[in-house]
């Protein structure tokens, strides 16, 4: 029987990792990630997880260590946040270019300076172009489930790309809720045995190879093409991983996106991570007030769910995108990505797409805030003054102007 435990988001991740049975873990402590690896050390110490824990001197070394271990054919795990992820950045590209199915938890945290340990999606979205599959979870249960699914997706022969699983700093990482921990034998039947059926050329003494040698301009593009193709195939693999998980464990998340009361909605609020829960609450309350509003949770940033977004959003009146990060000199990152997907090949008959940049550095966004965001735009939509674009929300203008 599956067990319910009261777990913080970080502990939920650790339980997901434990059930996935990685053989090598390497990480460097950083708030708010640290308790993930602390818990994993405890599992290893108690003999509940048979993995080698490498205590490295930096995040750059952590990713290097799991890259080496994965090349040798081991199932691996690492985790980090913010500065740690940025320090790791060179190795992040190496892991995907090397096509290694590493799984990494990212507890999203604002970037220095100024110091701030609270949630912000800037660190995760900074990895957007690295060739990693990137997903973001809404609650602690999804954190546990997605760590397990991440291995299923990453190790699939059609994919062979590393996966990041993002969860919001503190509001998930340190907040405890009841979480169902699946049975070990169920997950054993879901995931392949670790270290077996390796679909990439692993290091072996019998068949020594030179890895990652110089590639001339006549071949480099083709290696990039192969990563892009793998990303495209990953869309299907994500769905399959979700469905198989559903059959065995009984929970599913809908793949690349999740929709909530979208079918008959003419206004849809798009968000990512824990905030989506508050958006769903706001949708229920707005529905009670007579507004036809729905919520769309962006679960994967890469591969980007263009087709799914077009299908769900193109015929709507208004699409509101809430970003918890900013691309300086441009604007909301998800807003930009979603606008580009919906505009692609079309110059008319698309909804008004409106972005909000808010909640940076952990600024709290409440259900009431979401309702205000929606109602403010409805007023402008009805008066015919609403155009495409983005704006700040909950910015303390009085202290900067």
């Amino acid at each position, binding site marked *: 029987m599956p067990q*319910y435990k*009261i777990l913080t988001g970080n502990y939920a991740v650790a339980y997901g990792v434990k059930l996935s049975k990685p053989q090598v873990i390497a990480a460097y402590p950083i708030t708010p990630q640290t308790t993930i690896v602390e818990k994993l050390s405890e599992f290893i110490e108690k003999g509940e997880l048979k993995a080698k824990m490498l205590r490295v001197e930096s995040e750059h070394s952590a990713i290097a260590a799991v890259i080496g271990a994965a090349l040798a054919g081991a199932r691996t795990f690492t985790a980090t946040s913010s500065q740690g992820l940025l320090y790791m950045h060179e190795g992040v590209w190496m892991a995907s270019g090397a096509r290694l199915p590493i799984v990494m938890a990212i507890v999203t945290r604002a970037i220095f300076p100024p110091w701030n*340990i*609270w949630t912000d999606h800037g660190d995760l979205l900074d990895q957007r172009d690295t060739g990693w599959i990137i997903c973001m979870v809404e*609650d602690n249960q999804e954190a546990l489930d997605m760590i397990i699914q991440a291995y299923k997706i990453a190790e699939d022969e059609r994919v062979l790309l590393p996966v990041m699983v993002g969860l*919001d*700093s*503190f*509001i*998930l990482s*340190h*907040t*405890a*809720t*009841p979480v169902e921990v699946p049975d070990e034998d169920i997950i054993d039947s879901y995931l392949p045995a670790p270290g077996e059926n390796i679909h990439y050329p692993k290091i072996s003494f019998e068949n020594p190879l030179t890895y990652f040698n110089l590639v001339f301009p006549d071949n480099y593009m083709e290696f990039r093409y192969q990563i892009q193709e793998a990303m495209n195939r990953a869309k299907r693999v994500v769905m399959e991983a979700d469905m198989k998980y559903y059959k065995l464990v009984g929970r599913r998340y809908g793949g690349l996106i999740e929709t909530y009361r979208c079918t008959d909605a003419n206004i849809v609020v798009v968000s990512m991570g*824990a*905030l989506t*829960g*508050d958006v*769903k*609450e706001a949708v229920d309350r707005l529905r009670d007030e007579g507004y036809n509003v729905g919520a769309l949770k962006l679960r994967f940033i890469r591969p980007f769910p263009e087709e799914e977004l077009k299908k769900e959003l193109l015929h709507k009146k208004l699409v509101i995108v809430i970003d918890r990060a900013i691309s300086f000199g441009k604007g909301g990152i998800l807003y930009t990505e979603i606008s580009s997907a919906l505009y692609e090949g079309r110059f008319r008959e698309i909804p008004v797409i409106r972005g909000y940049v808010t909640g940076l550095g*952990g600024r*709290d*966004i*409440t*259900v009431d*805030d979401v309702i205000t965001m929606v109602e403010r735009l409805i007023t402008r939509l009805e008066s015919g003054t609403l155009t495409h674009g983005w704006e700040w929300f909950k910015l303390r203008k009085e202290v900067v102007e």
Partner: protein
Amino acid sequence: MLLEIRIHGRGGQGVVTAAQLLVEAAYYEGLWGQAIPFFGAERRGAPVVAYARISDKPIRIHSQIYSPDIVIVFDERLIKLADVYKGLRENGLLIVNTTKMTKETIQISKKGKVRLAYTPATQIALDLKLIVAGWPVINTAMLGAFAKATKLISINSIERAIKNNWSGKIGELNAKAARLAYEKTVLYGG
């Protein structure tokens, strides 16, 4: 039903642990919960807070708690040091660790239409010699007071949550503290 709870204590008194035990006990009652630490740096002795939500449905909200229904105070002196009434809803409940409610607290609560409950958690811990690192352990006792004052969670579930987290004598002693505090909880008004 959604109940929001704020716990005031001092760094080291176990406000976060209390919130987590509360969520676990609520789970045994078939309720959903969320235990939320204060998101920042904490220091031993300094006034600190933790939060919890309890609901009959899975909880989707992740924002902070601004208008609690229940406020639990681990040290009566915090009533003056921290703004324990901040945001407390009308007809809300204030649960204090004390042997006697001050007239002032009773007056303020009456004015703010706040119900009051108290229990001598420190005295109970001292009597049981339930002391860790020089401080009486009062967080588990205060959960007993919560059970009595709210009738939302049974004392049995509180004890079960405590024993599930600490085996042997420590678990027994903490459960006993919760039980004694439950029995000694005094309700004012409401």
